[in-house]
């Protein structure tokens, strides 16, 4: 790395959507229409389904306000992505889009054929418009209570035309928040290590494939490379603000912690400063600290340092290996892996290194990830045979369950920001790929399709 300068982390700047949280006046109900006076506001906004059933939602193609190809394409794809986003959280029953292809598209929000939607059994209906203005899309979206023929949500968004999916993701997250008080993850991202570009370095020993860090949207769209260093890069970890990724990088054949600010054209920083070998960084929930493991004192131990590398402090003192730290959502505790009983197991300790206790007693347990609230769970890689499965440990009760069942080997879980989903690596299709799955083991979704992909991390 002497003469050969680090390439700046090359990432196409994401089309950022400036959300003009500009409340559209509900277009349909005339002002004269009187509201039921005693009805509380929450009930008025929240669309209910039949008793005991989730509300049924329909998302027809958005209305293209313009005849050009790009606008019409965006109107269709935003609706499809929004449908997928809403289906992902399983809060609503999403009526399949092909079943309402025959319902005439509204020419404007004022001409919605509510009776047809009511016949279909829709409780909620999302109508949107897309207009192209120079290099931006203006997207409006309304959520209607079909029974009441009334808009309960309406917003306009302006953003670049390069990534129309972000409009759908934003609308989905806002509808989940308004209707279900749920933090959606449609705008979150995944990072993972991959050998997909088949790059290798001809070393002194053998030709070795490098791995680089890649990122994608939560649903696998927009996969792109975040590092370009032609070396082994592993264990990416998103900073809580989503601007940086910390990872294990083999710099001059020496593993160290790199931090790449992936939306800036700048070389990574090296907060551990090459002191010993440093691996598997984990951001504290407030983003001010990094926990990691290092051999700097001769043996694999857990350390914590400020994100700028100052105030490095050792947390574990045991002659076994203490590795792979993961913070609790409050930042008060750290889960980690130790082989002090002879095989790797999951342990917890307070963030100052005190109160160490073992929580798994099985043949092999690795790579804990701690669920954000409202769940208090730790997922980890659990050996169940020749391969591994994803296990989830309930911290309060000590109960343990598996969410994968021996299809290939399933490893390296990472919780989504709302605790309802996990990303993990699975070899169930032969090669190593990233999948997402619900915390109940349902809703398996394949994220990567090319190369071998490892060690996913889900952004906050």
């Amino acid at each position, binding site marked *: 790395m002497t003469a050969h300068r680090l390439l700046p982390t090359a990432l196409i700047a994401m089309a950022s959507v400036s959300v003009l949280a500009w409340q559209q006046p509900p277009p349909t109900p005339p002002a004269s229409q009187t509201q039921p006076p005693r009805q509380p506001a929450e009930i008025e906004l929240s669309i209910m389904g039949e008793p005991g059933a989730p509300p049924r939602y329909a998302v027809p193609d958005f209305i293209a306000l313009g005849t050009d190809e790009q606008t019409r394409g965006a109107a269709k794809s935003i609706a499809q992505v929004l449908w997928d986003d809403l289906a992902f959280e399983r809060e609503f029953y999403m009526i399949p889009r092909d079943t309402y292809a025959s319902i005439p598209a509204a020419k404007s929000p004022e001409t919605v054929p509510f009776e047809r939607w009511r016949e279909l059994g829709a409780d909620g209906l999302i109508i949107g418009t897309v207009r192209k203005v120079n290099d931006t899309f203006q997207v409006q979206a309304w959520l209607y209570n079909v029974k009441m023929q009334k808009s309960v949500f309406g917003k306009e968004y302006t953003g670049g035309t390069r990534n129309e999916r972000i409009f759908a993701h934003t609308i989905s997250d806002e509808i989940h928040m308004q209707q279900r008080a749920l933090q959606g993850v449609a705008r979150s991202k995944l990072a993972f290590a991959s050998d997909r570009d088949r790059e290798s370095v001809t070393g002194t020993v053998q030709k070795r494939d490098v791995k680089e860090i890649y990122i994608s949207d939560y649903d696998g769209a927009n996969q792109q490379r975040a590092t370009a260093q032609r070396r082994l890069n592993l264990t990416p970890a998103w900073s809580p603000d989503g601007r940086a990724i910390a990872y294990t990088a083999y710099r001059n054949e020496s*593993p160290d912690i790199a931090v790449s600010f992936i939306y800036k054209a700048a070389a990574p920083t090296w907060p551990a400063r090459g002191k010993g070998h440093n*691996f*598997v960084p984990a951001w504290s929930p407030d983003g001010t600290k990094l926990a990691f493991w290092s051999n700097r004192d001769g043996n694999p131990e857990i350390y914590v340092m400020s994100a700028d590398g100052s105030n490095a402090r050792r947390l574990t003192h045991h002659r076994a290996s203490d590795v792979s730290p993961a913070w609790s959502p409050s930042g008060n505790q750290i889960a980690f892996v130790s082989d002090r009983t002879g*095989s790797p197991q999951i342990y917890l300790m307070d963030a100052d290194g005190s109160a160490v206790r073992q929580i798994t007693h099985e043949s092999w347990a690795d790579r804990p990830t701690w669920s954000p609230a409202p769940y208090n769970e730790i997922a980890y890689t659990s050996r169940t045979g020749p391969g591994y499965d994803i296990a989830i440990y309930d911290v309060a009760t000590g109960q343990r369950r598996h969410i994968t069942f021996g299809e290939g080997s399933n490893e390296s879980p990472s919780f989504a920001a709302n605790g309802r989903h996990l990303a993990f690596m699975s070899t169930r299709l032969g090669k190593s790929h990233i999948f997402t799955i619900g915390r109940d083991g349902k809703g398996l979704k394949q994220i990567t399709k090319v190369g071998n992909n490892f*060690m996913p991390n889900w952004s906050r």
Partner: protein
Amino acid sequence: MKKRADGSLMCLMAVFLLIVWSGCAKRQPPVARPAPPPPAAAPATPGVRPPAPPQPVSEPPVVPPEPVPIDELATKTLDELNRDSPLGPVFFEYDSAELPADAQAQLTTNAAVLKQRATWVITIEGHCDERGTAEYNLALGERRAAAARTYLMSLGIAADRVKTVSYGKEFPFDPGNTEAAYAKNRRAHFVITAK
């Protein structure tokens, strides 16, 4: 230092030629040799005692014509050295960083080479088989490399000549998933980085 290297080279050459000679002797058809002279006092009744076995012919000692002044290892590039390394890898048991007896023997051999090549700087790579999880194997590889390094230091190799790195299971030498492949991949591998 140069002198010592030459001396050892002579020894190496002699050993080499002996090996070559013995190898040839085995493969060559028997060469007609003069029959041993009959014993001075022939037994009275032939047949009672078998004739004495022919005495082995003492071959002239193999002497290299001239000491070869070229130090073969010294002329090799680092890449050539590492491709056919004089420092053999050491192998480990499953999920273990303990050095088995044969690993200790190999490390002793490696230490001897390193003492002859006092300028060499090496990196010991710790590797693991694919059965463990990738993250934990980073630690296991680290400890394997460290165990090999500590052993070399106990044999008198200076600490600053021996670096380590763990590659976990990222760079298997044999991509197969047989026990033989796993055994090959559980290793501390020696790379000469300066000479």
